C-alpha cells in the first residue's frame, strides 16, 4: 500500500543540536550525565565538548516525504535502531532527511500486519553521514482499513 513512495526521500532539513534541548532530553530519559550538558565537564572530556544521548536524534526534523500518508492514530513502534560514525556534539549542525525504505505484510494472529521501515539520515555540513536510524512502524489490519477508507 506504500508502493508508490518506496525509495522516495525528503529534502534535507537543517537542525542544530541545541544545548537546552539536549539537557531537557537527558533529564527526560533519566540520564542527566554531566557529559551531556555540563560545559566544564565536556571541555575536559576526550570530546572537548558536550555530546548527546544516543537516542537524541529522535528530536530532529527529517522533513516529509511527498506522498507518504500515515494515520494519526493506531501506529505501533516495533523496532528502532541507530548507527553512529561518531557521537554527536552539542552545537553542531545536522542535515536530516527521511527515506521510505520498505513495506512488507506478514500474516499474524489478528490478520495481516504491515511493517513500514523509515530510514533517517543525519549528515554534517560537508554532506558526510554522522548517523542513520531505522524505525519499523507496524500497521494493523484495522489501521490499514481506516486508511483505505479515508
Amino acid at each position, binding site marked *: 500500500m506504500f508502493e508508490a513512495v518506496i525509495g522516495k526521500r525528503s529534502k534535507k532539513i537543517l537542525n542544530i543540536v541545541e544545548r537546552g*534541548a539536549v539537557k*531537557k*532530553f537527558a*533529564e*527526560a*530519559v*533519566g*540520564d542527566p*550525565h554531566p*557529559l*551531556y550538558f555540563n560545559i566544564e565537564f565536556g571541555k575536559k*572530556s*576526550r570530546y572537548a565538548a558536550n*555530546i548527546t*544521548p*544516543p*537516542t537524541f536524534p*529522535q*528530536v530532529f526534523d527529517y522533513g516529509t516525504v511527498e506522498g507518504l500518508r500515515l494515520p494519526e*492514530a*493506531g501506529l505501533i*513502534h*516495533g*523496532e*528502532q*535502531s*541507530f*548507527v*553512529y*560514525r*561518531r*557521537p554527536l556534539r552539542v552545537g553542531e549542525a545536522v542535515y536530516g532527511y527521511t527515506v521510505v525504505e520498505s513495506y512488507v505484510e506478514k500474516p499474524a494472529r489478528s490478520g495481516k500486519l504491515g511493517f513500514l521501515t523509515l530510514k533517517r539520515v543525519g549528515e554534517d555540513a560537508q554532506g558526510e553521514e554522522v548517523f542513520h536510524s*531505522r524505525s519499523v512502524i507496524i500497521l494493523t489490519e484495522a489501521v490499514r482499513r481506516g486508511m483505505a477508507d479515508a
Partner: protein
Amino acid sequence: MKLGDLKVGDVLPPLRWPPVSRLDLIKYAGASGDYNPIHTIDEAAEQAGLPGVIAHGMLTMGRMGKLFSPYFEEGFISSFSTRFTGMVFLNDEITMTAKLVAKTDDVLTFQVEAVKQTGDTAARATVVFKLYDAMD
C-alpha cells in the same frame, strides 16, 4: 570499572527504575516532541483500545542509554538496535540489564533487556560499543 576489561558473559550494574509515572511520560513527550496522546491522555489511550496510557517505546530505549553513559570516555555506541516486545503502563517497574555477549579487540557487543515487574520483557536491544584505545 572499564568496559574493556569485561569478559564475555559479564554484566553491567543493572538499573532499577522507579514506577513509571504520568509525569515521566509528559516530560518525555515534551523533550522528544512525540505528542501522540496515547502516551499522556487516558481517553485517547482508551479510544485506541488500550487499558490506559502506555509509555513511549523511545523512553524505554532512551533509558537504556544510561547503562552505557558512564563509559563514553572509553568509547561510544556505534550501533543501538531495539525491538519493543511489550507495552509499558503507568506504575510498571522496569529493570534494565546488559550482558557482554561478544568481544573483539575494539568492539564490545551487549544484549540489553528491559524487564517489567511481571517478568515480561518490554524491550530487547543490541548495543555495539566501540573502544577508542584500540582504534588509535
